[in-house]
């Protein structure tokens, strides 16, 4: 739209970045909410673009979501930066989130984190050089306290962790 400003300030459309599959998924979520509450579809939309883009959401993709949903870009960024399951930086092929909430902490999650960090040679929030594994910086409680300490690997829960079980799980990743 027109608000005659310097031409170089005008932003370009990013809609073309969305695949047909992503658009279909966003439409599925959009259909669940009344038009004036289409902001609610932002989480479904962000999951869709994250899946499309090997696990992370670029600024351009956020712009595409904002254009597609017709909501302000900052609303998309707020959601993307708030939830720990969204990644706004490139990630490895596998995402590992070690729970450090209260139950897991009491059951020794700090040692688990340290062991995993040493084994992979990266800190929480970092990705191994070969692009294989990302240690997610922070995960809220995922309601698996009975099996604390626990971690999530690519969406799968692994409970009652020990150093041996971590070796096995990490060894099994490609």
């Amino acid at each position, binding site marked *: 739209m027109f608000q005659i*400003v310097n031409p170089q300030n005008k932003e370009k459309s990013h809609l073309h970045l969305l695949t047909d599959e992503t658009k279909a998924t966003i439409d599925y979520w959009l259909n669940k909410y009344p038009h004036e509450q289409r902001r609610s579809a932002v989480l479904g939309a962000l999951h869709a673009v994250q899946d499309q883009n090997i696990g992370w959401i670029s600024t351009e993709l956020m712009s595409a979501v904002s254009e597609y949903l017709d909501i302000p870009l*900052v609303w998309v*960024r707020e959601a993307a930066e708030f939830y720990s399951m969204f990644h706004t930086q490139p990630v490895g092929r596998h995402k590992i989130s070690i729970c450090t909430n209260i139950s897991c902490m009491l059951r020794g999650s700090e040692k688990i984190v340290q062991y995993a960090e040493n084994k992979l040679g990266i800190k929480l929030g970092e990705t191994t050089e070969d692009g294989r594994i990302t240690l997610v910086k922070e995960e809220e409680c995922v309601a698996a306290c009975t099996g604390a300490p626990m971690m999530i690997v690519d969406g799968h829960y692994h409970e009652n962790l020990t150093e041996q079980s971590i070796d096995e799980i990490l060894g099994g990743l490609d």
Partner: protein
Amino acid sequence: MTETSNQVPDDKVTIEIDGQTVLADKGSMIIHATDRHGINVPRFCYHEKLSIAANCRMCMVDVEKAPKPLPACATPVAEGMKIYTRSKRATSGQKNAMEFLLINHPLDCPICDQGGECELQDVAMGYGRDVSRFVEGKRSVADEDLGSLVASDMTRCIHCTRCVRFLNEIAGTDELGGIGRGDRTYIATAIGQGLDSEMSGNIIDLCPVGALTNKPFRFKARAWELMATAGLSMHDGLGSNIYYHTRHGKILRAVPQKNESINEAWLSDRDRYGIHGLNNDKDRITQPMVKKSGQWNVISWDDALRILADKLKNTAPQEIALYAGQHATSEEYYLLKKLFKQLGSDQHEHRLTHVDFSGPYRAPRTDVALTDVAKQKNIIMVGTYARHEQPILNHKIRQAWLHGAQINAFGPCHFEQNFDLNLDITGHQLAWVEKLGSLAVSLSEISGQKPDGALGEWLSQQHADEDINSLAKKLLKKEEGALFVVGQIANRHPQANLINALVHWMAALINASVNEVVDGANTMGAALNGLYNDQDIKNNDHTVNIIYQAEIQDFAEPAKIKECLINSEMTVVFNAFCDDALKARADLILPTTLLPESSGSLVNNYGQRQTALVAHKAPGESKPGWRVLRVLGNVMGFDGFDYEDVYELMQETEKLKTLTSENPVLAKVNQLKVKGLVLFPHHGIYDGDMLVRRSAPLQESKLATADTVYVNPGDLVSIGFAVGDLVSVEQNGRYAELTLATDDAVPASSAVINMGRDSSLNINAGELSVSIIGAQS
């Protein structure tokens, strides 16, 4: 007590605050009641004009029977509620909230611009601990560049989200958001793109800490060194109420003065930062000057006025013309009119922005008061970009839209709005007026009524349009009412009279109201004083031309006025500034002051008369215009120029009769033929008057225009040049050098040129045919 509580109205409840029994509106919050009764409850995130967030937790109060302190801003009142704002539980709640807020807030008050006028500092004095219990390191947040108007120090942010809510709810631009979460939340734009709201400066006033501060004012002064002077904005027809903050007679910044009937608690960026033009020395005139054989010589006021008086005495009255800018005070217009009456000349005009003088003069019509615009159910914007013309009017239109109003627009461009438009009917300058004709055709066909005369004849050649037909049907159901807002694009249109006649006919048919947006801060004052002529006085030859508080850039037809000035014997300029373009054509320059440097009254678009005081010391020998005119009247030997002070004059201007707006008289429709592209003379928000054009912060901001000609991308092939090329735009043998750009918002065969800039001084708004030809070497 039992007797009185029986008489409590249905919509009220009785509550007790600190032992005082008061009535409060049902459903209102505790803080509304405490505020109304002058009971102080500390707060950071709550603001009466914004939604309730309840995230600072500072306004904790003690409510009887509640298990813990409750936030006053988010707790609704209930019958019989007993509230204690000073009890131990309340104050300990407040003190705890304060301690949390200060965990990460830096203790850098001595180097913070907000120091001395900081809500956090004030409240911390009352509720903070003397010594912090925290030894941990404080968090720091990277700053981002928000543009030339707002400075940020985000480390100081306490996440009250007032700025986020303002930009979401009031400005409608949603540029800031809370990024991240928990103790790592920070306020930022989505991608560091800065702010582009025309109201962005308000977040400075809203910010309770020093996170968002006034960038041009940064490190200039401390709050306690400043004096506040009540003033009025001179940049649009509203006269927004301002406090000028001055030190040693120099305005350092402007802040809003509350006025619910005009600007509420807000100020547009133009009104806030326009004053920086005053401190721009370029082209500022400080002494009277006369041109002798091509050389400018400084002379005394006595000599200058004698030269002028001699010339006026020896010139036939009708040979003397006056072009008055639209932001002088009513007192100056009053004296100008008196002067011209005694001279015997009626060659005076304030409508410098008009090009269609085909009908007799008519005063602008304003049926609906500004505050009531927000209550409209249907608004039809005709040739207006209210957002840039009167930002506060646009705010009211947006409020109407938020309350469910349907907004439609007819104009030469898809303008970026901060509300949704039902219909955004665009076309080149002639086409959109025909589309407006389509609305009249539909209304005429459905209602069976037809206008007479030239309008009826013109309408019989117009065609109905399906989309517009549905709008007509809705408007004919009269119960909701409708408001036509006719704006500055229509004022500057060569068919302005036709547009007005159309709108007035439609409004009468559907019983709608009409508000015409005026071009200047005191257009109404000039009109009240009768400074107009039924004809275009630029078409007459004059020996003496007087330009009063205007520059060539202020004319809709700068090329035409340049021609007039060259062909006259003497051009006299009464103004604070005189740029090279005007200097080249002037013979005598008299330095008069601008509004913040002189006192007087203004009448706004809605008929409200307001007065302003002197806030800024004018440089050199500049004098207020009324004083110069008073002396000139006396030198001329005229009667009635013996005023002791401006207040004596103001007593007379106060008695001026209010204007009644007549229906437009359309004797004949200006039939225009266009060759090549159709010009849309666009007026950028910061190109409208001599102060904003010289205000560096505004000119560096995102909304500033460029020396550009915009066309529709589809026309690029036939034009034969590429985007970014420096091209010559030709209009009747005159040329403007501009950079070619495209935009989808521009209709086909249209060329948009930014007026009010040096680059467009050869372009007349009234001549619609332009063509883009190769760059001149």
